[in-house]
């Protein structure tokens, strides 16, 4: 065969762009996962038209090699489309449907064009199929990537939210930790705590680990780091909220917490903190 595979696709795009577009859009809108509730028909039509144009331009230049630089406009559109649809609430299959639904009309056209030459037809269909598969997979990848970006952003937001430093009393700070401590979080916790120590001039900080699900050697090390940093600035730390299981784990793991004052509850820690700052809490009048 003189014509390289994929060239027929270009011919079809040249000759029958309008018909192809009409059948494709029709197909896409009728498909079960078209999500007409999330996207307008006009938008779909516009996206399809744009895609066909870019596809043609890329196929003319670089054949069916999707990784080539000439295909960048197509990839770019797919990336944009995928992340947009991921945000709108499309599922991955519904997003990939955009590319895969082109198969049917395109193959139909190929059959009409080539007619009865089975070998050529098979070759062309294979080439077109591979091309669309690659593009479809690319959509899914882009979809996933945009989802991961969302997750990363949420993680960051959660990190900010979950490390509050509260002032319990004049000169006494409390740091209720919730969730697992990893090194990234320790960094944020440490920075927040030290910053607040500077701002409030607190001399005692209570780190409450009631909300920390597990304490392993790494978490303990992170805690000790935070305590050491606070101490360097002139503030003492008390660890509170140690649950029975956690106490057992700490001892079994051989974590050295001797240098740190530890208390079972935040109330105990607060009492110690008050005592150290020379304050006392008493009843205003004797109870009846």
């Amino acid at each position: 065969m003189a014509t390289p595979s994929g060239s027929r696709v270009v011919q079809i795009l040249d000759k029958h762009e309008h018909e192809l577009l009409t059948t494709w859009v029709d197909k896409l809108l009728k498909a079960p996962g078209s999500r007409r509730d999330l996207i307008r028909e006009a938008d779909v039509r516009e996206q399809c038209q744009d895609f066909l144009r870019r596809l043609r331009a890329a196929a003319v230049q670089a054949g069916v090699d999707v990784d080539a630089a000439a295909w960048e406009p197509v990839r770019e559109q797919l990336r944009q489309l995928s992340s947009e649809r991921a945000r709108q609430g499309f599922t991955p299959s519904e997003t990939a449907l955009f590319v895969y639904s082109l198969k049917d009309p395109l193959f139909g056209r190929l059959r009409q064009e080539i007619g009865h030459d089975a070998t050529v037809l098979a070759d062309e269909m294979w080439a077109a199929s591979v091309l669309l598969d690659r593009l479809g997979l690319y959509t899914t990848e882009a979809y996933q990537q945009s989802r991961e970006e969302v997750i990363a952003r949420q993680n960051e937001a959660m990190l900010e939210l979950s490390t509050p430093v509260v002032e319990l009393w004049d000169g006494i700070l409390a740091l209720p930790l919730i969730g697992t401590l990893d090194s990234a979080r320790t960094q944020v916790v440490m920075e927040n705590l030290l910053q607040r120590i500077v701002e409030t001039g607190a001399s005692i900080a209570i780190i409450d680990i009631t909300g920390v699900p597990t304490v392993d050697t790494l978490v303990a090390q992170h805690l000790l780091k935070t305590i050491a940093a606070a101490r360097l600035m002139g503030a003492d730390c008390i660890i509170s909220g140690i649950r029975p299981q956690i106490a057992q784990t700490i001892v079994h793991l051989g974590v050295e917490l001797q240098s740190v004052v530890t208390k079972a509850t935040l109330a105990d820690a607060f009492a110690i903190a008050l005592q150290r700052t020379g304050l006392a809490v008493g009843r205003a009048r004797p109870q009846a």
Partner: protein
Amino acid sequence: MADVDRIPIIKMGEFLLVSIQVDMHDRLAMTLQDDLTASVVKHRARGVLIDISSLEIVDSFIGRTLANIAAMSRVLDAETVVVGMRPAVAITLVELGMSLSGVRTALTVERAMEMLRASVGETVHQGRAHAAHPE
């Protein structure tokens, strides 16, 4: 400020005050160590207060020098308190694995003076009344 080759050491009663206002480099740190130990002996100081609130950059050498100064002063029977370490400096030192465990720390100069007075006060009263305590 690159031409600073000595950090002044101020004697105040039985304490020595050192305020580090410039970026420490290694030679400056060594000079400070020499001067300070000499001053502790000369003035028979009971406490050393090192204010590092202007210090923005530390490395492991400066950290170790601080720890050494504290250890040397203790040998000479003077308590060392490091004052006003910045959060970034504290984090850096901890990440370097230096928690300066032998050094006492305070957030403000007032509190450091209180600490020094408290630790020295029990042994040296010399008739000085408690009214001398600052607010």
